[in-house]
């Protein structure tokens, strides 16, 4: 590993400082967090614009136009019409490109959703119960509880959830019980989803903690940055600032 430049070293420290600024939001909204927040907004928008320019505008519009591709005049006209949104009187012209883009997606989604979400999901929800019986019996622990019971539970759970969202008639009599079963299935799924998600969220914090302790870098690099020292010093600085700020707020 080569030595880091001063700029890179400063960068590593700034990166840690910004991390701590955002974490200070856990205490409450404060000037340090606001600073980081606004910096984030400005930088993120600029990066979006730059990447969109090089990712789309340049290769798909500007270069073909400069290369004399006449077909590219059509999207150019659409773009110009979109910009009429800014004109007080002619803003209705922007409706044409908006109509175009919405229709293009709507058409794509229509077939995509119908195929993958509707048809495939329905097709996958018709288990062969006699096959399940032959392979697993009622309930097979060694195959995560596969078997006839699970097959039936899947079909009934799915049906009940779908019928819970039946809007045309009030849920009375038998429908009440079906709907109730549907809600319980939904709750089971939501709870499981929540529990499953906890892991991902903690993982994110681990990533930050790894950086604060220098574990994300090669050892030779980490030695130059002194991440632990930086973290401790910067944390003390931010906490010190918060204490002063709080005191001032109280006196004011």
């Amino acid at each position, binding site marked *: 590993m080569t030595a880091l430049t001063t700029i890179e070293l400063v960068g590593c420290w700034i990166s840690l400082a910004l991390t701590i600024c955002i974490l200070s939001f856990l205490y409450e*909204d404060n000037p340090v967090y*606001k600073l980081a*927040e606004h910096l*984030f*907004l400005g*930088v*993120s*928008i600029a*990066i*979006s614009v730059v990447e969109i320019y090089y990712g789309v505008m340049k290769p798909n519009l500007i270069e073909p136009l400069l290369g004399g591709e006449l077909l590219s005049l059509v999207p150019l006209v659409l773009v110009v019409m979109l910009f009429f*949104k800014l004109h007080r009187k002619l803003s209705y012209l*922007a409706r044409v490109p*908006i109509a175009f*883009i*919405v229709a*293009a*997606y*709507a058409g794509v*989604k229509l077939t995509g959703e119908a*195929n993958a979400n*509707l*048809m*495939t999901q*329905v*097709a996958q*929800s*018709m*288990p*062969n*119960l*006699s*096959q399940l019986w032959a392979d697993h019996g009622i309930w097979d622990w060694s195959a995560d509880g596969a078997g006839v019971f699970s*097959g039936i539970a899947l*079909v009934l759970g*799915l*049906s009940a959830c*779908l*019928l819970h*969202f*039946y*809007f*045309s008639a009030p849920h009375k009599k038998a429908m009440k019980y079906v709907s109730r079963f549907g809600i319980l299935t*939904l709750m089971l*799924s*939501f*709870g499981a*989803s*929540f529990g499953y*998600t906890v892991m991902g969220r903690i993982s994110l914090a681990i990533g930050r903690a790894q950086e604060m302790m220098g574990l994300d870098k090669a050892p030779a690099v980490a030695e130059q940055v002194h991440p632990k020292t930086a973290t401790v010093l910067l944390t003390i600085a931010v906490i010190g600032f918060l204490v002063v700020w709080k005191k001032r707020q109280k006196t004011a």
Partner: protein
Amino acid sequence: MGKPVLYVPGIDELQDIQTIASMLILGQVAKTVAEYQSEIIVSCCIPIVREVADEVVKAGFYQAGHPDAYHPGNTRFISSEQFAFCAGTNGIMLREKPATNIYLGRFFAESLILAETGYINRSIQIAGTAEATQLPFFVAACDYTLIGEELFAVSAYLSRDPRLVSSLKASDYVKVFCVACVLLGTALASIGNPIMIDLFTIGE
């Protein structure tokens, strides 16, 4: 009274069906807000969604008879980066203190940060999305949550447009048809006849 309503139409493009449903509901919400002579802040993640939301809110205020109360600076483009958008929207919640937060549309991981910030702000929170991964968080942190297709149903219901309501009814019938197919298909598959499965399989 006097405190604004914050409306977040999700973070997906205009072309997403959930965003379109959200825009339709936004029209109704804006109209109601205008009738009470209150303010509505719309926080957008996608530039083109902001442009449309702006039109929708303007139309809502116009219909309520208060076109003068409409304020274009209240429909804002925040950032197209998910968490920058989230930070910016948090900022609105903390500093402009809306009384009600409405999250309708397609949400991802930012859902819980938004809903929790709204919760400590003691705002009334209404959420709705068809994004299954985020529903648990809205259910945990909001006062009311619309689940999945309820989001589409609300927009059709609020519009009171018979053509939209009828499409709702049509999807209900398809739903029952799907349930019938699943039950029948399972029975047939179990006696070794995969005809229903084949019927629903495309492109192989």
